[in-house]
Each structure stands twice: as C-alpha cells, then as structure tokens.
C-alpha cells in the first residue's frame, strides 16, 4: 500500500468518528442552549439560578478540563462513560452553555407585545414560549449559534485527549508512524476547513429558509 492509500484509509476511519461525534453533539447542544436560555429567562428563581450557575461554570472551564473531568473524575462518583460518550457529553455541555447566551439575548430582544398577545389568547407560559417566543428568538440567535457550531467542529479535535479515535487522533498517530507532518497535517487541516465550510453553507441556507418575508431587516 502506498503512503496515500494507507493515509486516506486511516483518515477516513477517524473522520467517520468525528462526524459521529458532531452528529450527536450539534443538535443536542442546540437543544441544551435553547433549554438553558428558556430556564434562565422564564424559570422560577431556583431553576433560573441553576441554569445560570451551569452556564457560568461551563464557560469558566477550558474544554480540555471539562473533557478530563467527565472522563476521569465522574467515574469516581459512579458515573462511567466511555471516551466517545464522555466527549459527546463535554461538547454538548460546553457548546450548549455558550449557545444559551445567544438565545437568551434573542429571547430578551423579542417585543413584549408578542408575549402579551399570546397571553391574551389564553396561552400558558409554556405554549407561549414554544409557539411564539422561541421560533422568533431562534431565528435571531442563528448567526451566533452557527458561530458556536463552527467552534464545536474545530474543537471536537480535543477529544483525542481522552482517547477518542477521531480524525485528529488518527492523523497524529499516523504521523508518528510515518513522520510526514506536512502532508498529514495539511490534509487534516483541509478536512476541518471543509467541514467548517459545509456548516457555514448549511447555516446560511437555514437562515434564508427561516427568513420571515417582509422582515428582512430586524
């Protein structure tokens, strides 16, 4: 097998793992972001405080430390996750915490009249949030969320630290066998750039799709 054949085979294995990590982390982190923001704005004192504390904590930890805590420290209190799931959990918590701030800002930017009109129809707070506030807030938060997702794609490489065989880990391992860093790491870099580009494109399309006619400038 030539260097490139072997390298591509290696890289593909890692890339599939990276895609699996992201396929779980991205949607779930968005959901967590929405949930945290909703809890902070609409939750009672206790719920709001817990959400705020969670966000403050996760934003105050380097992701590497969060990964190590989930993988090495949580087993000490009886919560055991394999490397893959440890990474997914750390990514969801970290990205969700950051995303929640965009969503919270978006929720607070929605005109109070929207809420009054929902109440006047007899909607419960939950119905109002789900059907009226979040659909509008999500649209406004989308540019920020897409920013966080691109970060998430790039820092998913940190999962190598707890032994997840994602694309950066396989590249690094392959380099230690072959020591051809220029080819190996620049190809790896290209793949990350490709994923970030796809994500940018996807979110741009999503923004266009969700655009409210007549309301281009908000």
């Amino acid at each position, binding site marked *: 097998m030539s260097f490139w054949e072997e390298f591509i085979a290696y890289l593909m294995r890692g890339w599939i793992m990276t895609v699996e990590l992201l396929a779980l982390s991205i949607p779930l982190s968005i959901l967590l972001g929405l949930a945290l923001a909703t809890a902070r704005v609409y939750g009672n004192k206790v719920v709001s405080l817990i959400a705020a504390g969670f966000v403050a904590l996760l934003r105050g930890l380097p992701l590497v430390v969060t990964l190590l805590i989930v993988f090495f420290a949580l087993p000490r209190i009886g919560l055991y996750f394999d490397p893959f799931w440890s990474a997914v959990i750390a990514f969801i918590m970290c990205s969700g915490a950051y995303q929640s701030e965009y969503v919270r800002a978006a929720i607070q930017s929605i*005109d109070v*009249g*929207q809420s*009054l*009109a*929902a*109440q*006047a*129809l*007899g*909607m*419960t707070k939950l*119905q109002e949030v789900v*059907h*009226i506030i979040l*659909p*509008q807030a999500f*649209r406004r938060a989308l540019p920020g969320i897409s920013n966080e997702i691109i970060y998430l794609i790039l820092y998913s490489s940190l999962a190598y630290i707890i032994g997840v065989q994602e694309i950066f880990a396989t590249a690094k391992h392959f380099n230690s066998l072959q020591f051809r860093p220029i080819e190996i790491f620049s190809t790896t870099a290209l793949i990350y750039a490709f994923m970030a580009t796809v994500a940018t494109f996807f979110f741009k399309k999503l923004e266009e799709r969700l655009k*409210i*006619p*007549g*309301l281009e400038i908000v």
Partner: protein
Amino acid sequence: MEDVESMVEDEIVLKVEDLYKSYNNVIVLKGISFEVRRGETKIICGPSGSGKSTLLRCINLLTKPDKGMIWLEGEELTTRSININKVRQKIGFVFQEFNLFNHLTALRNVSIGLEVVKKMKREEAYKRAMEVLRKVGLEEHAHKYPAELSGGQKQRVAIARALAMNPSIILYDEPTSALDPQLIGEVLEVMKALAREKVTSIVVTHEMGFAQSVGDEMLFMYDGKIIERGPPEEVIHNPKTEIAKKFFERIQELYGREKR
C-alpha cells in the same frame, strides 16, 4: 323570583365593581364600576393617563387589580383560584400596536389560538381562520406575513384573531391610534359591522363618529375615575363636567366635525 333574577343576571356579560389599581404608589384606577350587557358596545374615552388601558388590561388579567371585583358571565375573575388562561380564552383583546405574531402568516396568526389553546385540529382551525379572515375582508392576504401587510390590514388580522376564539367579549385598546389616517376607516368599518352583529365589546377610542354610530354607552374617564356616563351623543355634545367639555372641544379641533 329567583328565576327572574337569574335571567336578568344572564344578560350581563361583564361586571366590574369598585376596581382599584396602582403602580409604584401612583393610583391609576380609583374605584371603577360598570356593567356590559350582551350585544352592547361600550365606549371608553378620556385624556391619556386617565387609566383606560389599565382598566382593559385588568379585565383580562394582563394586569392584576389591587382591589375590587370583576365577573365574566357570572364567574368571578378576581379570586385566587381562577384559571387565568381559561378566562382569557373568553376575552378577545385587540392591541393598539396590533401585536401580530411576526413569524406567522395572517392565517396562522388567526388559527394558532384555535390550534394551541382550543386544541382544534389544524385543518379545522385553518377553515375557521379563513372564515373569519373573509369576514374582515382579508381572505386574499391570508398567506402574507405581518410585515407584508399595511397597518390597517394588520389590525384587521388582529381583530380576526380575537374573533376566531369566539369570545364572550372583545376589548379594543385604542385600535386605530397607531394607524395612518387613511387606514383608520377600514378598521372602523370592520368594528362597526361586528357591533351591528351584536358582538359584545368595550372600545377605548377617540373616534367620536364611531362612538356615536355604534356605541350604546360611553364612559368618560379622568384621573382613574368614570366622571361621565351616558349615550355617546349625550356625553359628547352635552358633557356635564368642565373637563369632559374641554376634552371633546379639543378632539373636535383636531379631527373636525366629520363623522367616520
């Protein structure tokens, strides 16, 4: 005897008794009492800051009154045990600033209450919403978003949204005050048509032509109190108080004598 009484009671849709409300030590409502009978159009007017909007918001409990009682169709709303959301389904509210849901088409603005609150099936809700939109003359705009509609059209959608819920009473909070003059007419036409169909309503407005053509009774508010009440013609043309007299003169200066 009891039967006669309950029949008379039956006619009263809304009863407000000795209502008080204050914000930060400023007393906005100082003992408001009145009744609205089925099919009646009650007009409320008065200078800004007199408590008109606060009164409407107290009625559908968007604001909690401090003291006093409100009954809707014999049910007291001012008790602690009341289910606010159930009550609000029976009270339509039309805002000065329309407050249409920006992310929904005209049709869905009208149907969402039916779907989410009244748990109607989507098709059924759409059918009902379309009927009501036809009634306010906006059938062909059903699939437009609020930002694509004119102010007058927005307010008509808002009226349709309230009407679709089949409320016992509709509260209009200065429904034409945010509109360009040439758009006021179309909204008033819709409101007049509903008044003639005997849709029970309370209308806070400064449109004196409208008040005189469909208003059954006018309440004039000043400084948190109702200081005049009677047939709109009477209150407008023969006010008993100096304050009301000045107010109507001022309105006439601004709008002229033409009737809408």
